[in-house]
């Protein structure tokens, strides 16, 4: 709509308020129109073969981990498992681009990223097993607790990265979120804070097509999720989330940019969730087999395997070796998960406050009595330890 100015009237041009000046030129912030790819393109020539082999081994292991964890839900050993099968390239790259001093802020689906970062596979599963909320010390591993309320971990990543920079440490925080999570207010607030503070944060959106059953088209009207970055004044990058080399490269660049004081980046990795939302979900209610089948041709493990074998970097023995290593990991996980965890019910009261309140001391004493009475009745002296 254009407004006709009255003839003879002095042209009125609003001047922006004095404090306002654009910090950033929007053009370089715009994402590429197509997801960036490395595998099967000329760019692969620049990729480090050793890195590709490492990524491959991790992808194979990750795929097996997802399958094993899902199987454990069927045996009642895990309360629930949100598989990331199909998304392993994002999970692994997220873990591998970080230096030891960096921090990872995973969502509830990102167990694999935590394990790839070096977390004990059993400790990584305590939340989903139901014996403890967080089975590891976040500071020791620099992995925030797996986060269930969507997008709420994103402002934490910003605050941590900001604090690290204030202290003069060149630490980067990488925060993961799903496509559905980008609709949450915390997503917006985190990106805005990060950009204003130029915090060394990288946001990785795994766009796997669905938020439980809701497809992306009902989640956003934006041309891409990466486009959301532009309005905050940070670059948005679109990458093929099934191309491990591409995700690794794009995230590495974003991490380097953050580390050198360049501020945050939003990376959208386009991928697909091959399994249902969790083991408890029925995906046939909201998507057809043909769609899933179409994505099988673009499987992240296969893509990398084809590239490596095609270039002679990997032979049948190598493939076999990777699979055998994954199998050993799965067997160990199975075995350890088949043992009942030893729980102390008194832990319920141990970590609410630094010092127990009088009220909690009373309640703890009551539970102690109940447990003692219970073990008297059962003639056991295990103090109520139960799975």
């Amino acid at each position, binding site marked *: 709509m254009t407004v006709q100015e009255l003839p003879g009237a002095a042209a009125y041009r609003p001047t922006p308020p004095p404090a306002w000046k654009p910090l950033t030129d929007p053009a370089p912030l715009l994402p590429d129109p197509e997801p960036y790819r490395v595998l099967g393109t000329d760019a692969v020539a620049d990729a480090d073969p050793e890195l590709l082999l490492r990524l491959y081994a991790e992808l194979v292991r990750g795929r097996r981990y997802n399958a094993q964890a899902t199987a454990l839900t069927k045996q009642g050993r895990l309360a629930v498992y949100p598989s990331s099968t199909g998304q392993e390239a994002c999970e692994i790259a997220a873990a591998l681009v970080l230096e030891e001093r960096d921090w990872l802020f995973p969502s509830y689906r990102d167990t694999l990223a935590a394990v790839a970062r070096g977390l004990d596979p059993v400790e990584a599963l305590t939340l989903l097993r139901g014996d*403890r*909320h*967080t*089975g*590891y*010390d*976040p*500071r*020791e591993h620099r992995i*925030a*607790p797996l986060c269930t*309320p969507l997008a*709420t971990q*994103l*402002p*934490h*990543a*910003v*605050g*941590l*990265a*900001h*604090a*690290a920079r*204030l*202290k003069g440490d060149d*630490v980067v*925080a990488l925060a993961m979120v799903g496509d559905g999570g980008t609709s949450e*207010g*915390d997503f*917006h*607030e*985190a990106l*805005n*804070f990060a950009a*204003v503070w130029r915090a060394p944060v990288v946001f990785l959106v795994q766009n796997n097509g669905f938020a439980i059953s809701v497809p992306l088209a009902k989640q956003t009207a934006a041309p891409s999720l990466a486009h959301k970055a532009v309005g905050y004044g940070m670059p948005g990058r679109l990458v093929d989330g099934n191309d491990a080399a591409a995700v690794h490269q794009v995230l590495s660049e974003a991490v380097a940019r953050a580390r050198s004081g360049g501020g945050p980046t939003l990376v959208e990795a386009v991928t697909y969730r091959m399994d249902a939302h969790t083991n408890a979900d029925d995906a046939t209610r909201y998507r057809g087999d043909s769609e899933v089948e179409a994505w099988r041709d673009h499987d992240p493990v296969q893509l990398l395997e084809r590239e490596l074998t095609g270039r002679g970097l990997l032979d049948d023995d190598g493939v076999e070796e990777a699979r055998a290593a994954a199998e050993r990991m799965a067997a160990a996980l199975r075995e350890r998960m088949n043992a009942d965890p030893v729980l102390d019910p008194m*832990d319920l009261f*141990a*970590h*609410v*406050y*630094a010092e127990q*309140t*009088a*009220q909690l001391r009373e309640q703890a004493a009551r539970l102690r009595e109940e447990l003692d009475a219970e073990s008297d009745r059962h003639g056991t002296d295990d103090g109520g330890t139960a799975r």
Partner: protein
Amino acid sequence: MTTAAATAGERTAKAKPATMAQALGRALRDSMAEDPSVHVLGEDVGTLGGVFRITDGLAKEFGDERCTDTPLAEAGILGAAVGMAMYGLRPVVEMQFDAFAYPAFEQLISHVAKMRNRTGGAMPLPITVRVPYGGGIGGVEHHSDSSEAYYMATPGLHVVTPATVEDAYGLLRASIASDDPVVFLEPKRLYWSKADWSPQHPTAVEPIGRAVVRRPGRSATLITYGPSLPVCMEAAQAAVEEGWDLEVVDLRSLVPFDDESVTASVRRTGRAVVVHESTGFGGPGGEIAARITERCFHYLEAPVLRVAGFDIPYPPPMQERHHLPGVDRVLDAVARLQWEADN
């Protein structure tokens, strides 16, 4: 437990009238000077010094990296504070007004309150969330809520509220020093209340969680906190003419709750009235009355009564005087204890 009389004796000759707002500002300043990990953040806390001027001068003295004007986003402010605390800082967050803290509830409840517990004690979050709360300042809608019951219902949070200038300083220092998150409720209508107080020789910092007897008495206990303390003190004074000798207990801390002090007082007096301005239904008074009944049933000579705000959304300012419990309503409640007292 300190009494008003005892602290009066400790005052130095240098003491001169200071407001609660000044004492709060001083507590922030002293905490920041003492501990470089203390950071203040919020809306307008820097150049402006906060809409109530509590943070006045902090940005000038400590720089805007330690007293930071944030974007206007309460969840973002508190969420960023979580990350800062994870990295070893002690953030003090200012929520501009009580009802504007609600966007941050998700962060407060799901993360701030639970992080220690979720991580089995590995990651405590020493965050202080300052919330100006309550009515009586003629604020329009959304500027006068008393939201303490929401905070009290969340395990993992400490909830404290000063009623005096000295406590404003001491409790805020203690809250910032606490390794646990504290929701620090500032009774905004007492911001300009004054007392003889010397910022050069501030009151010793007491650990949070102890109530204090502000006025000893024998015939009934008024249990109160924050903005209702002056109301209760005035009521106790007025009740003398009716032959009542009222004890006034200032809770100071709602979580942890000082059962011991409250129980001791009510057992002495045999009667109790809980006074606060937040709504009665589902409000703190119900919890407090229940605790008293459980612990003092055989000592009670009358039912525990509550004097609270009405169960209505906070009224428009021209009507708020009808909602806020005043001296008369407290005295009426005391009179309702009378029948049993005569027997």
